């Protein structure tokens, strides 16, 4: 794994990530997953019929991706892309035009056989301050990246 670049400890704030949503972003996300037909994400009529909403909404997996970007930047890609996790509950819709900010705070460090699990409380909020998603994320990091044991 090489040189240890950073330390992780409880109460650390994770630098946030913000995204302003557009229908084009949503369309590209759906297309990348092989979805080409109309859906509640890409077509207003389908959204009205399926969800009863006035317009399209973004897949919760887009918020999940934004949270994973925040966590990857915090832990580093070499760690997070091989030992990372993100787990979100979606509370409110994210629509084109919304600005979503993912933020996080380290809430626990647990010693494991292969290092330590750093747990981050994750929150997604929109431009109105409404919570759109909550959950946790984390990563298994080398023991040398953790505070010394008491």
């Amino acid at each position, binding site marked *: 794994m090489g040189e240890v670049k950073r330390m992780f400890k409880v109460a650390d704030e994770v630098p946030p990530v913000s*995204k302003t949503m557009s229908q084009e*972003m*949503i*369309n*590209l*996300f*759906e*297309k*990348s*997953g*092989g*979805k080409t*037909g109309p*859906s*509640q994400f890409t077509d207003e009529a389908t*959204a009205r019929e*399926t*969800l*009863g*909403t*006035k317009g399209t*909404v973004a*897949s*919760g*997996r*887009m918020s*999940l*991706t*934004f949270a*994973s*970007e925040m966590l*990857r930047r915090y832990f580093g*890609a070499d760690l*997070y*892309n*091989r*030992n*990372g*996790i*993100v*787990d*979100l*509950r*979606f509370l*409110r*819709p994210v629509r084109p035009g919304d600005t979503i900010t993912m933020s996080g705070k380290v809430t626990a460090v647990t010693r494991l056989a292969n290092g330590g699990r750093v747990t981050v409380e994750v929150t997604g909020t929109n431009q109105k301050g409404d919570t759109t998603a909550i*959950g946790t994320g984390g990563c298994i990091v080398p023991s040398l990246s953790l505070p010394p044991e008491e």
Partner: protein
Amino acid sequence: MAHVEGEDKRKLLDWDALEVGEMFDTFSYVLTQQMIDDFRKGVQDPEAAFPTISGKVDTVQYHVRYRDSGSVNARCCFQFYNPPVAGKRITVQSWIADKYARRGKNYICTEAVSVDEDGRLLDRVITHELKQPSEVGKKWEK
């Protein structure tokens, strides 16, 4: 969402009869550079390493077997093991991991693991889907 020409021969979902542990046929696809590029543009992150998130691969085979009135993603969990590589064939095994009712609404939990043609474990996804999507839409529009 699976597209079926002509008569829809899929089973109508019977939530009560659905069995936790039910396995689906494996699903396989080749991840292209175009898919990766579209994903990265869509999430505005040129370093995004897991375009597999947008594939919703854990529910692909569910939709091949069942039809229902749609769904809303209530919760999703991803575990990352190895970034997928463009041009590699990816095989997905999915199953019904759980189901539960909460506040009168029915949820299905699917789980899937993706492995590439070299045997590298890529990721694991667990998704909780609410199977009465219009109920959520009504709440959202209040």
